């Protein structure tokens, strides 16, 4: 079985910004073993 996550990660824009910028950094790499609750990214 497989789980696929698809998500937006837009930082909230401040009043002087035109567009919110995507800000998400993965902290895993391909082949990593991961467990429930461990960070995928921030």
């Amino acid at each position, binding site marked *: 079985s497989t789980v696929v996550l698809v998500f937006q990660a837009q930082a909230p824009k401040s009043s002087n910004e035109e567009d919110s910028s995507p800000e998400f950094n993965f902290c895993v790499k391909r082949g990593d073993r991961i467990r429930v609750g461990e960070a*995928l990214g921030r």
Partner: protein
Amino acid sequence: FSSASNGGGGNPFLMPGATVATILMLGALHVRRMYNDKKIEEARERGIELEFQPDAKAAFMRLLPLRPISRLWGSMTSVELPVWLRPHVYRAWARAFHSNLEEAAFPLEGYASLQEFFVRTLKEGSRPIDPDPQCLVSPVDGTILRFGELKGVRPMIDQVKGFSYSVSALLGASSFLPLITEGSVHEGSSEEDKTPTEKSKKTSWRISLASPKVQDPVSVSPVTGLFYCVIYLKPGDYHRVHSPVDWSVLVRRHFSGHLLPLNERATRTISNLYVENERVVLEGAWQGGLMAMAAIGATNVGSIKLFTEPDLRTNQPIRKSLHVQQPEERIYEPEGVGMMIKKGNEVAAFNMG
């Protein structure tokens, strides 16, 4: 054996000969499989990715009655085992598939069947949840297959090098794409008192095209800031699905598809695995925007139980043709608000059969 040895006219060496030959053949196939797996592992360590290469075995898989096979497997594994036998069976399973028995919430004798053991809960504290509110956590135990940022009007995800599938096909025809990105992200002053999560929930709901009957689009442009992660669960992994963030689930889609295997060999040789297999998709919103999670079943793990919707039945006998994949969709009430799920909470579980 007895008829041969009693001089019934048969060849006394036929049965033992056939048995030995079968064992030798299975042994040779197993050795070949181990050799191939080792070559793939070595290639991966060198940074080489094997490309999509369909073969005859993959074509043959599509001809098999995988759904009945899966349901039969489920029936077999749901048989209640004698109490004295249970620890032996589950230890053998754990040894074969590298499960950690120390984490099981209950003594092995307490799991009446292999199916019950497979969907076991874990001891409290076995899976601490990263408390950082900016952090998105893994919803499952498993192996990271792929991840990254999605771009373009029709974003695609690589199943394997040389073959990709569309996000819209995975999640549902009109999900996510195209998104409205102009003039709708932030409300006026009346929204300022709300928390960021409440703001993004409401605005994200308004910009989502999860279902045509939900809302009317205002304007369209290519999606931005969209990311994905694909996680594979091995047979020995903990098979419950947890929430990766605090979010509101707005829509549930159930695709009754095939039940092709999802192991590494299958992903390299069978096309459209993730968009043809039976799966349940939850779609909604979190503080960063839209969120969707697809739980995809396979032959040996064919059913998906949703704790948010216990009556949902998956891996049912299918009578209609599977050629046209139309999901069965349900919008969670109240419409526009959905069902709140906290980060780390159990959402679903995969099970055998």
